[in-house]
């Protein structure tokens, strides 16, 4: 190689390493700077990372919980109750949004022009209005405007009042509805908002999936004597699901993340409990770490389940 001199900026073998070293150094300096400040500032404030405060009594109450909880229980129990509340709304929301979304998505293939148009309008209307606005609308305008007492909406076995949705033989005791199974308006508003919003996106996923099945499949099934409903169930859906399931995955994850807006309609989910815990204890870094970790785990769980489902519906070749 004598006599051939390659300047370093043209050296194809060296350059990648130089670039990476520069980027790595920059990142390292940035991280060191941030962490250094963090440690210095936290030490100055006397808030250096510690988890023992989680055992202290929380001192605040949670309005609705599945786990028994009161103010004398420790912080970690409060956060756990919040997590369970989040999981509850996410699980019910997933089912509801899938049902409504599939309904709207298939309605856009209806032979009825009005129904088809309505499905489009629903999607365009919901997708262009912020979810938070929809949540406060459901809570303040719809659910909190419900009548109470004898004026409440009564159906056989179900009563919908300002104080909540009562299921299973509700009865009026001293002007207050009571029943074995009660759903609060906060939960109802959050659930309705999440389901209506996510369903619009799921409807688009379903529509895209069904549209990806060639028209010839419908025609072939029809000429073999399948009814439209049979065609959908036996021929089209199994093929459409291959496109739908990956799309559903991201919608489910965004539903789980969106459930953190619960604080807007007074439902005490994980985020809401964490916010109160931070205000009470001042432990900002730990609370944020718990929040980020919890949502990451929920996302990963949903992804794992959906990937399993995806393996089931994908084409298996011998």
């Amino acid at each position, binding site marked *: 190689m004598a006599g051939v001199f390659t300047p370093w900026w043209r050296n194809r073998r060296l350059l*990648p390493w130089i*670039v*990476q070293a520069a*980027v*790595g150094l920059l*990142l390292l300096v940035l991280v060191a700077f*941030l962490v250094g*400040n*963090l440690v210095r*500032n*936290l030490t100055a*404030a006397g808030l250096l990372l510690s988890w023992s405060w989680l055992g202290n009594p929380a001192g605040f109450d949670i309005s609705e919980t599945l786990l028994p909880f009161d103010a004398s229980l420790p912080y970690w129990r409060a956060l756990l109750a919040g997590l369970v509340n989040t999981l509850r709304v996410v699980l019910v929301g997933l089912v509801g949004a899938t049902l409504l979304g599939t309904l709207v998505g298939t309605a856009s293939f*209806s*032979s*009825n*022009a*009005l*129904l088809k148009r*309505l499905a489009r309008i629903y999607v*365009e*209307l919901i*997708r*262009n*209005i*912020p*979810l*938070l*606005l*929809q949540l*406060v*609308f459901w809570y*303040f*305008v719809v659910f909190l405007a419900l009548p109470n007492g004898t004026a409440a909406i009564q159906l056989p076995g179900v009563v919908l009042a300002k104080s909540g949705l009562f299921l299973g033989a509700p009865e009026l005791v001293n002007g207050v509805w009571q029943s074995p199974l009660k759903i609060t308006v906060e939960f109802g508003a959050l659930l309705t908002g999440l389901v209506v919003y996510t369903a619009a996106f799921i409807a688009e996923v379903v529509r895209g999936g069904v549209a990806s099945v060639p028209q010839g499949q419908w025609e072939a099934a029809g000429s073999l004597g399948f009814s439209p409903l049979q065609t959908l169930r036996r021929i089209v859906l199994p093929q459409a699901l291959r496109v739908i399931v990956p799309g559903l995955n991201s919608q489910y994850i965004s539903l789980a*993340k*969106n459930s*953190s*807006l619960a*604080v*807007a309609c007074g439902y005490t989910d994980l*985020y809401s409990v964490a*916010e109160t815990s*931070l205000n009470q204890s001042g432990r*900002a*870094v730990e*609370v*944020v770490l718990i*929040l*980020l970790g919890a*949502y*990451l785990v929920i*996302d*990963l769980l949903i992804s794992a389940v959906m990937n399993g489902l995806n393996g089931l519906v994908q084409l298996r070749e011998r």
Partner: protein
Amino acid sequence: MDAVPPLRLRPGAWQRLRRGLFASRVDGLISIVLIGFLLAAALGLAKWALFQAQWAVISANSTLFAVGRYPLEQQWRLWLLTTLLALATGLSWGLLRAFPRSGPPVTLWPRNDRWAVAILVVLAIWRPMALQLALPIQMRWWAITGLLLLARWAAGRWGQAIPQVSRRLVPLIWPLLYLVGMVLISGGLGLVQVAPSEWGGLLLTLLMSSFAILLCFPLGVLLALGRRSELPLLRWGSVLYIEFIRGAPLITLLFLGQNILGFLLPGGMAPDRVWRAAWVLTFFAAAYVAEAVRSGLSAVPAGQLEAARSLGLPLPLALIHVVLPQALRVALPATVGQFITLLQDTTLLSLIGLLDLLGTARTVMANPEFLGKNAEVYLVLAVLFWCCCAALGLGSRALEIRLNPQAQPSR
């Protein structure tokens, strides 16, 4: 042309209606139920909007909704900015029409433009009146709309006469205007400072979203390129960042920005609460834009980059001139979709105590005078957001057609 009556191959409106709504017995039943339901809903809404709703909450607080607590004696700066924006819009619009992608301009006012003008005129006359603004302020809106249309007409009429060199400079008025707007809004350069805590309402919403949109786009492109880079450090760094951001709900990141950013920076260096939120929004959106751009990048065949490299183009130039133009065109709809989401996500600022549109609405409704006027306020906000988002979507579709090399010139 001879007076031969056209063959009626297309079914008439009545027939189409019958076939669409009453093709079979079930269809007919569904249609009747739906029509009844829609009529009832429309009647109920109209009855409520006309007789029960008290729109005074909107007109009495229109300034608050528009600019928040921006000082009254400094509001001329915002009027000036609006006027400049109207002029720039008219100019760009006219020039776009004067220079279609292919061929000479078809007409000065295509059909879509006539619709847009009609909507603008109706808005300029009806909206200030509905808000019961004072007559001088109503007249300001008429003047601004008039200026916009005048600029549009002049640019469309004489746009061809502008020499090519200065025509290339026209898109530059937008970044320039953005900087001018920032100065006008926040003060400095001889203007009185207006602190970010005094910005509010629509002004804050638009400012936050435009700031985040402008900055998240280059960041997102860099992240997407990093994720597809051959250098492991760049690739894994980008992947880690994108997946971390996409795994967390925005509200927890805003929460992080408000509560932890102060600890991460040396004392006194942490920005104001409004700017913290703006930066969090930017970094949040960048991860999603990166994913949109990545899908565009993977649509460009690998041969394109290889061909450019073998012609001797250095990697940065090959990316800028060959790969990115093709990738961004493919990624455009998804990217604009992210921008629309970003605009909607600015409502989350109200949850961390900033006075964006929704935050302003909450303070207005906490006022005892307007207690319980939730429906009116939320409905107006919903219409406002819907229009903004739908307009962005329409703009994206128009841009997509204009950038498509195979597109036919529009009539």
